[in-house]
């Protein structure tokens, strides 16, 4: 029974990832490009190129996102980081690529998807008014776990 249900969940997990992959290939949001050279081997590890929106502080800049899914997806959020050195200087992006964004943590919902994650990150960049590193960047660098999902985030800033 448990095995069958696990197999079913496994199947639903892969099915949804494939579906998202197809949709993102076919109709990506503006500024988002899926790099599927990596994806050929491993569907749970995605690389996405995003470009800063026109008319914002990040206009013309290119960034790289790494999205890793575990088999609890979509019930558990994926692990989303910027890949060094393609990371923006932003008050919510740490030097190791970790992003302080509530939808990647406690505000995650299984109705969200890769496309909406990318849009949220783009919108986070677009609404930024000052290109600065997070206040506690050097502190975080010392203690940060490799997986940002293991960090206990405090979400204090709703404006950016």
């Amino acid at each position: 029974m448990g095995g069958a249900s696990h197999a079913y969940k496994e199947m639903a997990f892969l099915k949804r990832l494939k579906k998202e992959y197809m949709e993102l290939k076919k109709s990506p949001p503006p500024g988002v490009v899926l790099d599927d050279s990596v994806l050929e081997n491993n569907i749970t590890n995605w690389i996405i190129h995003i470009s800063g929106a026109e008319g914002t502080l990040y206009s013309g800049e290119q960034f790289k996102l790494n999205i890793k899914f575990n088999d609890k997806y979509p019930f558990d959020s994926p692990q989303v980081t910027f890949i060094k050195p393609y990371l923006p200087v932003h008050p919510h992006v740490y030097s190791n690529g970790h992003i302080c964004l509530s939808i990647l943590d406690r505000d995650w919902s299984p109705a969200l998807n890769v496309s909406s994650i990318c849009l949220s990150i783009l919108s986070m960049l677009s609404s930024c008014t000052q290109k600065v590193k997070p206040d506690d960047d050097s502190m975080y660098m010392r203690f940060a776990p490799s997986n940002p999902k293991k960090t206990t985030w405090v979400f204090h800033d709703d404006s950016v």
Partner: protein
Amino acid sequence: MAASTDKDDRGKGTPSMEERSFECNICFDTATNAVVSMCGHLFCWPCIHTWMEARPQDTPTCPVCKSVIDKEKLIPLYGRGSDQKDPRESLPPRPAGQREEAPEDNNNTGYFGDGMFNGINVSFGVGGFPFGFGLGPAFTIQTGRMGGQHHNVNIGHRGNRMHHGRRGGQEEEQRKTMARLLLTFAILFIIMIIFT
């Protein structure tokens, strides 16, 4: 991938907006064992159940709009031929739909008598000598039909219309009291039979 049937093939083409509007908001596939939340969002029952169990310490919220959701308030959707066998039957059953009978006219029910005893029936049989109190058909208590060796008590509660009914609260109260009284009496009677 044995279960990849026609549903998969449909997914490979471009699903029309019409088809996509029946996709589960969690697995992004056509909803099976579909339920809808009070806020109107569609899910497979196994999907939304897994989500509600995923963070047990938090109040479950709708994945789409964050409205509070409750297992009891999810409405199942029964389409034509929706009860196909699938592996998800190992999961807890989908909440049942709630039905309420339309009020019925009491005048032609054909019960014996009328008034507060209407709807109460206690009958017991002992050995080969059943005797009964015929007070209408809501409770039936049978004891030791088979020669007094086995005593079984059946309490069948029938007559649903009482619950949604047009009876006054006082009458309902009296009926319940009477039923309880008769039940106690019946049980005492059974005990008496057993210990004599």
